[in-house]
């Protein structure tokens, strides 16, 4: 049976993982390559590395980070943050990424989705949508630039357009839940997951195993991503998968 994916996300700035990281037995707890490997060994189904550094001169650092992380990673590896063009994407792929994630650039010029998909295949193109609830009804708006600017697009309509233009997956982050640890926005996730045929990765709000179970069952998510929840030790990811599996959600465990 196709399993639900648990994805570990590393936020990287200037070549270093920036969220509170307390892994033990690592020579260097902030090193993205070591953390990616550690996550992979403790059962992550996929690794996402998001470059949150804004400065352009840091791109070279990012590519070196991707190269080092990819060398010892044999599970799917997605890289996002600051990718604007086909050339940016090509550089990240040749550094060893399997998929790229694009957000602001795709909203500014949706044709970039098609260009990257035609060259590297749709399976390599993840469109990231940062969605925020607006108004009273079930309505969410897409935001760009790390959630700083409203894009003036309905999140569901944008997800459908992204699919049509060649996106292979949607990485959907609830800005309302991000960093809260109170659970994923199941209503948002379900609204998007039910309106596209491509897989939807839920993100924002993970605090415990029950939240994953809810977003898979009620949110119809195909995968769920979290960052900080995994950053407190090797055992957490394995524990999490055991708990999710105990509730009869199919996961890759043991792996």
């Amino acid at each position, binding site marked *: 049976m196709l399993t639900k994916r648990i994805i570990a996300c590393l936020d990287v700035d200037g070549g270093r993982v920036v969220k509170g990281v307390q892994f033990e037995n690592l020579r260097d707890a902030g090193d993205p390559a070591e953390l990616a490997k550690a996550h992979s060994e403790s059962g992550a189904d996929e690794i996402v590395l998001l470059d949150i550094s804004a400065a352009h001169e840091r791109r070279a650092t990012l590519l070196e980070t991707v190269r080092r992380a990819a060398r010892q990673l044999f599970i*799917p590896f997605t890289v996002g943050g600051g990718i604007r063009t086909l050339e940016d994407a090509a550089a990240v792929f040749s550094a060893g990424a399997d998929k790229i994630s694009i957000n602001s650039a795709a909203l500014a010029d949706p044709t970039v989705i098609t260009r990257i998909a035609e060259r590297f295949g*749709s399976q390599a193109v993840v469109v990231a949508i940062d969605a925020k609830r607006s108004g009273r009804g079930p309505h969410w708006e897409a935001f760009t630039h790390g959630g700083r600017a409203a894009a003036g697009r309905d999140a569901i309509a944008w997800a459908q357009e992204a699919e049509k233009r060649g996106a292979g997956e949607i990485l959907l982050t609830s800005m309302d839940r991000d960093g809260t640890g109170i659970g994923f926005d199941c209503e948002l996730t379900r609204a998007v997951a039910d309106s596209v045929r491509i*897989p939807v990765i839920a993100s924002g709000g993970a605090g415990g195993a029950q939240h994953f179970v809810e977003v898979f069952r009620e949110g119809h998510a195909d995968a769920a991503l979290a960052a900080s929840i995994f950053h407190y030790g090797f055992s957490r990811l394995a524990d999490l998968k055991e708990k999710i599996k105990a509730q009869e959600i199919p996961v890759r465990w043991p792996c």
Partner: protein
Amino acid sequence: MIAIVDYGAGNLVSVKKALDWLKQECAITSAPADVAKASKIVLPGVGHFATTAALAHSGLKKAIAEAIEGGTPFLGICVGMQWMLEHSQESPDTSGLGLLHGECERFPMSVKSPHVGWNQLEVNSSSRLLRGVPSASFVYFTHSFRAPVTETTVACCEYGGRFSAAVEREHVFGVQFHPEKSGAVGLKMLSNFCEI
């Protein structure tokens, strides 16, 4: 030297990286002459079946067919495996190598497509490629079309019905999933292939 065949479709770095990790001498190439003298051939592939038309135009198809005929071990991955069949519904005008019988077909509407993620194998124990890989092992898939189960199928997968996850005939192998992205299980298969 293992030739990783480049025909302009997608990203070959992952396959190269995995073979490097296994300490295999390998090179990404688009030259038919390199394919002709390779000790083994790996044909990756992502995206659309139509991209494989480039193999025929460039002379690679002929070189691959001759090398296989001469006994060179061959591994097709994803669209590279689909190309080993006769046709795919994805691009009816593009011919595959026709080494294996059958045609690739779409997933039924009852399931989401593409089939993306980790799914389990039902392994036929007589496979050389899957030696040491138990049934129910998880591997990573990402595809919209699938090959039917035939007499050359050595592992099946279930998603909207059973399909061929791995095929094998003599020194010719194909996998629908991505061994280079399937963790330790995938590396084991690549290592098995390298030892053939």
